[in-house]
């Protein structure tokens, strides 16, 4: 058995567009998803994440490349012969069937005997805490309950991989939070590989073991939540995951894994360089707002001067908007950890913003 539950190898998907042109939804995507992993495909709408998921499910076929499930090439295998099940964004419960019939559908298709079906349906409904709902129709259930039925209907078949297409998209915030934890609990319980499509970065960070950030049909970065947040490999990823500051400048000096970057207005700072850069190259430096400080601090080497333009106090933190001498604006997030935290500056006041070399990352693309 192969070590990957699902592997996408140089997968492309092209669609005919409405005007006869070719739309490339997925561009040369290669992904390796481990067995038992909770994997998220994260990106804005139209980034190709849903198309990728639909290709794994078999609803779409790749224009190029190959998809493997546990090492077996899927080729043109139709959805009903793939060892995966899908939870749809709209749940797609069969409205003319009861909850029990909905959950039993997959087992009936497999020809499982009646007694076994009854037992497993009851078991699956218990797992999603909907025991006793067998006789009801989907319409009589709330959105959250329908969602759980959709989960039970997929999981009852014990698929090798469960695919979830924005399954929490239609729920309100409170229910979403609940379901996020519920999904995680379920995934641990059943030990099945979950591949999860979402546009909500917080959701992806909360639930997944690893995340692939997609944009424009390309998988930009794959890694753990921590990896992607702390070590974004491009501007899009840094911007999409959490909040960040971008400072545009030119490389002035290179030193092994760090470089001095000159910003407009004569300000310069040192930043970590994960990729090789050369002197004179135009680059972007990203620094997370919580890694910048207005508070005096001796250890941080980088110091840039600016003026406070606005202050937003939200209790746990205070956000300061600062315009630098060169005209670039940044946001600084100071945590109010002291017993009696006060504002560190007033609007219009000149401040010195500090941050470490490691907090600043040079992005070349």
């Amino acid at each position, binding site marked *: 058995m192969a070590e990957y539950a699902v592997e996408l190898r140089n997968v492309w998907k092209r669609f005919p567009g409405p005007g006869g042109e070719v739309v490339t939804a997925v561009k040369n995507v290669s992904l390796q998803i481990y067995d038992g992993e909770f994997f998220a495909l994260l990106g804005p709408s139209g980034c190709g994440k849903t198309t990728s998921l639909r290709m794994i499910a078999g609803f779409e076929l790749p224009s190029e490349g190959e998809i493997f499930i546990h090492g077996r090439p899927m080729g043109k295998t139709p959805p009903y012969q793939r060892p995966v099940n899908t939870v749809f964004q709209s749940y797609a419960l069969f409205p003319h069937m009861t909850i029990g019939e909905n959950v039993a*559908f997959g087992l009936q298709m497999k020809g499982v005997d009646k007694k076994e079906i009854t037992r497993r349906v009851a078991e699956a409904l218990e797992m999603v805490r909907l025991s006793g709902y067998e006789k009801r129709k989907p319409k009589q259930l709330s959105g959250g309950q329908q969602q759980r039925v959709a989960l039970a*209907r997929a999981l009852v078949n014990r698929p090798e991989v469960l695919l979830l297409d924005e399954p929490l998209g239609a729920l309100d915030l409170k229910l979403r939070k609940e379901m996020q934890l519920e999904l995680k609990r379920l995934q641990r319980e059943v030990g099945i590989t979950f591949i999860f499509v979402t546009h909500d970065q917080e959701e992806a960070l909360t639930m997944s073991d690893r995340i692939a950030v997609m944009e424009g049909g390309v998988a930009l970065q794959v890694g753990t939540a921590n990896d992607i947040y702390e070590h974004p490999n491009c501007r899009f990823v840094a911007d999409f995951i959490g909040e960040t500051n971008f400072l545009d400048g030119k490389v002035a000096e290179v030193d092994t894994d760090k470089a001095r970057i000159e910003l407009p207005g004569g300000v310069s700072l040192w930043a970590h360089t994960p990729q090789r850069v050369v002197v004179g190259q135009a680059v972007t430096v990203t620094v997370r707002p919580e890694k910048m400080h207005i508070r005096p601090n001796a250890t941080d080497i980088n110091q840039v001067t600016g003026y406070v333009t606005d202050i937003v106090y939200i209790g746990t933190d205070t956000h300061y908007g600062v315009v630098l001498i060169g005209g670039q604006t940044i946001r600084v997030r100071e945590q109010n950890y002291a017993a009696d935290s006060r504002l560190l500056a007033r609007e219009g006041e000149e401040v010195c913003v500090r941050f470490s070399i490691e907090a600043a990352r040079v992005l070349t693309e």
Partner: protein
Amino acid sequence: MSAKKQSPWLTLVSILVYFFLYAPIIVLIVFSFNASRTNVVFEGVVNQGPCGPFYWYCELFRNRSVMDATRNTLIIAFTSTVVSTIIGTMAALALQRYDFFGKKVSETALYFPIVTPEIVMGIGILVFFSAVFGWINTALALAPSQRLTMGLGTVIVSHIAFSIPFVTLVVRARLHGFDDRLEEAAMDLGANEFTTFRKVTLPLIAPGVLAGAMLAFTLSLDDFIITFFTTGPGATTLPIYVYGLLRRIVTPELNALSTIWVLVVLIVVAISQWFQRRE
């Protein structure tokens, strides 16, 4: 609504509308029990023979030509309904599901016969059949007894043709807003294309398909113009037969026939309503 005083004029107009709609039918039914042979004066309820007040109904059932016409009409209606419902539903599914070259044109072309005057369709079909039959008959040099002629077959084919657009229209209305994900879900759960259609698609569009079938059935049942052009010897339908009678003498037998007809249609409509309610 309740606060607004209803205008007496509105009530009056409504009553008049319903009166004009239903009075002729009621008169027709009443006259089917007429003691007189004519449909001019009501001379009291007939009470003749073993059937009593239903004398004309019994006469009707003894009338060979009426029974033949009824049989023809039902054969045509059933056959054309089944075939046009299948083809019409398939067309609706194809138009709903696929984008193909010339989709707009083929869709418009499909609905065009609905607005085309029936007389034009009738003449067109007649000309078409005579031309094709003439050509086949000469080409194969068929003997007079083997020749292709107008008859039950041509009527059925033309009824199928004019019913398809109506079925497609009704089924498409039902398909509008159909969640394609439901079919994907079925396939995802292990159902192949055919099982998916049987277990998910068809049950969900069944009310539309049934409504389309009912429409096709009633259209075929009372079609006169196209049938008139395409019928042949031995393929007389009820509308054609009734039209023939009108030129001679109208007896209450005809009223009895119409009364039964109205009842049948009523039952069909009630059944289809019941089916749609159940969804």
